[in-house]
């Protein structure tokens, strides 16, 4: 509740609220996402640098078993309500499945422990072709020193495979003070082995592409929304289905 005003004052223009679903416990229902307008009565908050703040909802599935992925294919109505869907694979096989066939926007890379598997090039390249982004968290790195080492080593091994493309850096902040401004997060990207342009893209253009990817997933397949992008306005205009082929799944 109090994290969001800090986000806005620091200069972010879109924020996604995350719900994590873990399958290790007994079968959980996917809850309907809390709509942002319930949390904030004054949602269109006009900001210093841009016009309006977007608050999106996001779902993260922690999968450690292939049967959990069936949830994604099911036509549960609640899944459709989330703007962005992320998956957190725990094994190599699941990583492969997530990159190649699953219908997600983001693949989370574990930063809190040593990766049990190495990244291989084929699934990573397929994910890049499909428009799926890899996500790194930075809040554990700020909190704890051993987490920092795991974060950096996992991030650098990811960079060596994917050459810095399709990376999104995000925070899993639970308190307002664990947040960092966008310029700082781009500088953190330098620590992870990204080049300067790639690091800035990891905070700005890649995130926007993920949002668009989520939108195209929600709507009919194969449609690309063209958005008007004058610099300051955040509202999107829906579509002329463009003639460009979508990069996503068929």
């Amino acid at each position, binding site marked *: 509740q109090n994290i969001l005003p800090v986000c806005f004052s620091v200069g972010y223009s879109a924020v996604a609220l995350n719900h994590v679903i873990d399958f290790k416990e007994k079968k959980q229902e996917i809850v309907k996402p809390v709509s942002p307008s319930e949390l904030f009565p004054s949602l269109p908050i006009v900001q210093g640098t841009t016009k309006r703040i977007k608050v999106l909802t996001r779902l993260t599935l922690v999968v450690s078993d292939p049967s959990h992925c069936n949830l994604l294919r099911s036509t549960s109505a609640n899944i459709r309500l989330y703007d962005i869907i992320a998956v957190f694979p725990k094994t190599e096989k699941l990583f492969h499945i997530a990159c190649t066939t699953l219908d997600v926007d983001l693949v989370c890379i574990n930063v809190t422990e040593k990766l049990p598997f190495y990244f291989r090039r084929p699934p990573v390249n397929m994910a890049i072709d499909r428009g799926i982004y890899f996500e790194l968290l930075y809040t554990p790195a700020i909190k704890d020193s051993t987490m920092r080492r795991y974060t950096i080593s996992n991030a650098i091994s990811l960079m060596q495979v994917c050459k810095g493309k399709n990376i999104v850096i995000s925070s899993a902040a639970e308190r307002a003070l664990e947040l960092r*401004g966008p310029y700082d997060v781009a500088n953190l990207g330098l620590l992870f082995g990204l080049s300067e342009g790639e690091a800035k893209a990891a905070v700005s253009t890649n995130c926007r592409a993920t949002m668009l990817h989520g939108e195209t997933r929600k709507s009919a397949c194969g449609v690309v929304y063209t958005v008007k992008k004058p610099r300051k306005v955040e509202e999107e205009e829906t579509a002329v289905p463009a003639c460009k082929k979508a990069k996503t799944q068929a």
Partner: protein
Amino acid sequence: MVRFKNRYVLCEVVSEDPRCRQCIEDRTLGHAVRDAIARVHGDYGLACCSISFTVKYLNAYTGTVLLRCRKDSYRLLCSALPFVRYLENRAQRYPCFLNTLHVGGTVRTCQKFLIQYNRTQLLRLLQNCSNEEERQCIQKSLLSCSLTEEQSQSGDEEEDDGTE
């Protein structure tokens, strides 16, 4: 001509605790930043960055800090700034974080940026203003901010409330 080139990093200290603002001093801040560099980059990083490292300007009301370092090592400094978690002053710890606003080559460019930034912040405060006197105060200070020649380093607009 051989000249030492510096980079000036403009940051803002953001904290939830209002008492944190009062204890911002150049020594505590310098100490916190050096500590963060040592934790992230080790002895080599600390030694590289502290060749010409000082806190050049500090404004406790708005929490604005201007740091100076060498051009060769400003990347080490910038990448270690997110790791500053608290300021420590006489055995009191205040959790906070630094938000980098601008990196410039001279104090003057940073000053220009700071004036523009403060102007946008004042505009934002203007929108959230509740009563008429505050509104007039802010409007007056907005109209009077400019870069004059006499001022050496500080931006020269007045701040009415330091709750930024």
